[in-house]
C-alpha cells in the first residue's frame, strides 16, 4: 500500500492535463476523479488503473451518481484517508 | 539622467552608461573600484544574455559563484562591495531591473 502514488484529477476529459495524468499513471497507482474530472466516468479511459474512484458530491452535482458502481464512489473522508496513506500525491 | 523608478532603478536598462553607475553608487555612499566594476560588468552581461536580473540575493550569489568561484561568489564579499541587499544594490548600480524576489 505505501509508496503508491495517488493521482487526484479535477480536469475534464478534453483538458490536456487529464490526458497527461492518464499517461503518467502506473497500474498500481490510485486515481480519484474530483470536480470536473468526474465527467470521465461516463466513458472510462482504458488507461485508468484498477484502483480508481470518484468523489460523491461531485458526481451527485452533475447527476452522475447512478452511472458507476457504489464501490467506486467515495466521500471526502475516504479521500482524506487515501491521501494520508499514499506514498505520494499528485494533484493534476 | 534617464528615468528612474521610486526605488532608484532605471526604467530602461538600455539607457544605462558607466557614469550613471558612478552617480547611483555615490547615492549609496559607494565609490566604485575594479572589484565593483567586475560585478557590474558581469550583471550587464547576465542581463544581456538572459533578459532577467538574478531574482533573489541567493541566486545573485550563486550566479557570481558560477562565474568567479567561491572567493567572490559568497555573500560576505558581495555585501562588502554592495551594502544592504547586495543583489538590489548591485542591480540598481548596473541599471538592471529590481530583482523580483528581493524585499
Amino acid at each position, binding site marked *: 500500500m505505501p509508496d503508491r*502514488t495517488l493521482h487526484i484529477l479535477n480536469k475534464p476529459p478534453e483538458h*490536456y*492535463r487529464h490526458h*497527461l495524468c492518464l*499517461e*503518467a*499513471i*502506473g497500474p498500481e*497507482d490510485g486515481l480519484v476523479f474530483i470536480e470536473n474530472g468526474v465527467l470521465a466516468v461516463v466513458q472510462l479511459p482504458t488507461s485508468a488503473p484498477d484502483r480508481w474512484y470518484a468523489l460523491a458530491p461531485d458526481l451527485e452535482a452533475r447527476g452522475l451518481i447512478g452511472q458507476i458502481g457504489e464501490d467506486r464512489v467515495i466521500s471526502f473522508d475516504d479521500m482524506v484517508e487515501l491521501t494520508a496513506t499514499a506514498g*505520494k500525491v*499528485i*494533484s*493534476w | 539622467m534617464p528615468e528612474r523608478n521610486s526605488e532608484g532603478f532605471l526604467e530602461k536598462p538600455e539607457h544605462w552608461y558607466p557614469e550613471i553607475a558612478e552617480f547611483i553608487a555615490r547615492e549609496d555612499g559607494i565609490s566604485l573600484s575594479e572589484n565593483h566594476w567586475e560585478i557590474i560588468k558581469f550583471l550587464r552581461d*547576465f542581463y544581456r*544574455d*538572459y*533578459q*532577467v536580473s*538574478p*531574482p*533573489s540575493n*541567493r*541566486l545573485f550569489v*550563486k*550566479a557570481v559563484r*558560477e562565474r568567479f568561484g567561491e572567493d567572490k561568489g559568497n555573500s560576505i564579499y558581495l555585501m562588502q562591495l554592495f551594502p544592504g541587499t547586495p543583489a538590489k544594490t548591485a542591480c540598481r548600480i548596473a541599471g538592471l531591473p529590481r530583482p*523580483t*524576489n528581493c524585499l
Partner: protein
Amino acid sequence: MSTLIIIDQPPYGSWEGREALDMAFSLAAFDQPVTLMFCGAGVNWLRKGQNAGKVGQKSVERNLAAAPIFGVEALLACTEACNRYGLTQTDLLDGVTVTAVGPELTSRYDHVTFAG
C-alpha cells in the same frame, strides 16, 4: 526532496508558466533539487529563435537559459508534444532532454507539481 515542475501552458499567453519558472528558481536558490518538464503546448517555451520583444515581453527562451546557472538540474521536453509541435532536437534550446511522460518519470521525484 526532489521536485518535478510541469509546465503545460504555452509561453506569452499567461503568467502561470513564469510563476512556475520563478518557483523552480526559488527551489534552486535553496539548493533543493528541481527539474522542469515541458509538456503539451508548454514545449513551445523551448523553441529557439523567439523574439518576445515584439509582444512587449522578455524572452522565456533567454530566461530559461539561466536555469543551469541557478542550479535547476534538468530541462525536459515531452516526446509526444515535441512531435505535435514539429520540434526536433535541433529546434530546442541547448541542454534540453526529450523524454516520454510515464510512471517511470514521475516516480523519480518526491513532488510533482504544475504551473497554474
